[in-house]
């Protein structure tokens, strides 16, 4: 049982990184990014492409890809998403849904439907033992620690910095934030830039841990959604806890039967949705 819970927590670390970008964009802009899963996948393919062309190791690929991700996110928000933002959530949903389809088709056209993975020099198979029976993978532990750092970093950014205050201000009241001298469009773009960095990290980890294929995006989006909704939309530690709950639930399901893991996660998600429709840690508003 202890092993199941530990493996669940480690799996939850990956789901947490999937979900933080979604939580950030929703928290700041009330925007639900339907293309998140496909953006994770395309990040994985870009990382694989950089590795193939430049022959860099995983760490250097991460260093290369993060600035690209931030700039892409910033420009994507300024040019595509900002015009869709209004009190009506439908335009941004439609645009990101359309983007999701475009990404899947472009990836399929360029890379074919075959799954690929990023060579990490054996990092994905390394493990260590605790006691006689408990074997823990090094990569899942790295992913879990990264999830904690990202969650804590975002929380710190929001609570302690001027940039975080501007995120909260436009989220609370965009009109008054603009009366303080802010450009909501620039604040939104910065938030999406950061969200895309998280998406890129998720893509790199996903492509090392397992494989990425053009059609994988929607299932990753589903896990991210479930983690965010279990935790309560707009709360980073809530998202972290939501991801852990989802990871542990799936691992318990896998323990019963290898085919049960995913739907067991869905089942727990639905139960929590019934009991606490706003999630475990909903963002409180005054």
């Amino acid at each position, binding site marked *: 049982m202890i092993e199941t819970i530990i493996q669940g927590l480690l799996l939850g670390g990956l789901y947490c990184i999937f979900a933080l970008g979604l939580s950030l964009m929703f928290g700041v802009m009330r925007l639900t990014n339907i293309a998140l899963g496909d953006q994770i996948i395309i990040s994985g393919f870009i990382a694989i492409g950089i590795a193939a062309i430049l022959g860099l190791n995983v760490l250097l690929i991460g260093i290369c890809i993060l600035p690209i991700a931030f700039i892409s996110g910033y420009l994507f928000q300024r040019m595509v998403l900002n015009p869709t933002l209004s009190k009506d959530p439908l335009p941004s949903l439609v645009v990101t849904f359309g983007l999701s389809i475009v990404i899947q088709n472009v990836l399929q056209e360029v890379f074919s439907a075959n799954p690929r993975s990023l060579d990490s020099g054996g990092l994905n198979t390394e493990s260590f033992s605790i006691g006689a029976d408990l074997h823990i993978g090094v990569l899942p532990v790295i992913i879990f620690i990264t999830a904690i750092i990202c969650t804590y970093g975002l929380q710190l950014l929001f609570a302690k910095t001027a940039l975080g205050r501007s995120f909260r201000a436009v989220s609370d009241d965009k*009109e008054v934030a603009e009366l*303080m*001298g802010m*450009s909501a469009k620039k604040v939104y773009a910065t938030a999406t830039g950061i969200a895309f960095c998280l998406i890129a990290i998720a893509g790199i980890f996903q492509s090392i841990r397992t494989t990425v294929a053009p059609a994988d995006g929607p299932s990753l989006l589903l896990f991210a959604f479930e983690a965010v909704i279990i935790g309560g939309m707009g709360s980073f530690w809530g998202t972290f806890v939501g991801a852990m709950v989802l990871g542990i639930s799936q691992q318990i399901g896998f323990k019963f039967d290898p085919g049960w893991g995913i739907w067991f996660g869905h089942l727990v998600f639905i139960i929590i949705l019934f009991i606490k429709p706003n999630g475990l840690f909903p963002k409180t*508003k*005054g």
Partner: protein
Amino acid sequence: MSSAIIETNKLNAHYGDAKVLFDIDFKLYPGEIIGVLGANGAGKSTFLKAITGLLKVSPEMYTLKGKHAGGMEPGDIVKQGVAMVPEGRRLFPSMSVEENLLMGSFAGRKGRWDLKAIYDLFPVLKEKRNVPSTSLSGGQQQMVAIGRALMSNPEVLLCDEISLGLAPVIIKDIYDSLPNIVSDGMSVVVVEQDVTVSQKCSQRLYCLQEGRVSLEGKSDELTREQISQAYFGI
């Protein structure tokens, strides 16, 4: 008299297809306190929205410090020295008192107003600096809203119905702080429904009715009858 810091010339404004302001001619001079009166729906808040850039108007209809400002972004207008205390206070609910005040300094204008000056003006806020803004009383929230606007060190302070929903004694306290606020030459536009308050605190009055200026004059020269007629149209 020196040139106007804010001037509107036949200002018209629309919400979609509906025209809500009609040919508003308005002047605000440095150091002046102006009252804008009117009933609900007269266009007072809409007028302030046009001045702050929240509602876009044609460039030539609105002049700020001698330059066309119609169509400018709200953030750029704040940086030019125009700050607003919005109707209903509209503090940021996720923030503490001090965080709300700090938001006012985002425009980066230097001047007399900083956290210390705000706490000197409203000492009660210093005691409550770390509490959530939503836990304050209405009057204290209004102090935060005024302090937040002052933190941008404005040359023009726009106050939109700051007495709304407050007890008379609190309203008196807030208006009593006005002379201290404007002592360094700041101009103030006070939008109010309360004729007595507006007439008492201002040097000139504009009365709006159905989006039009129905009366304009020096506050101490206008009679209650003139104001009532312009206010209610009877």
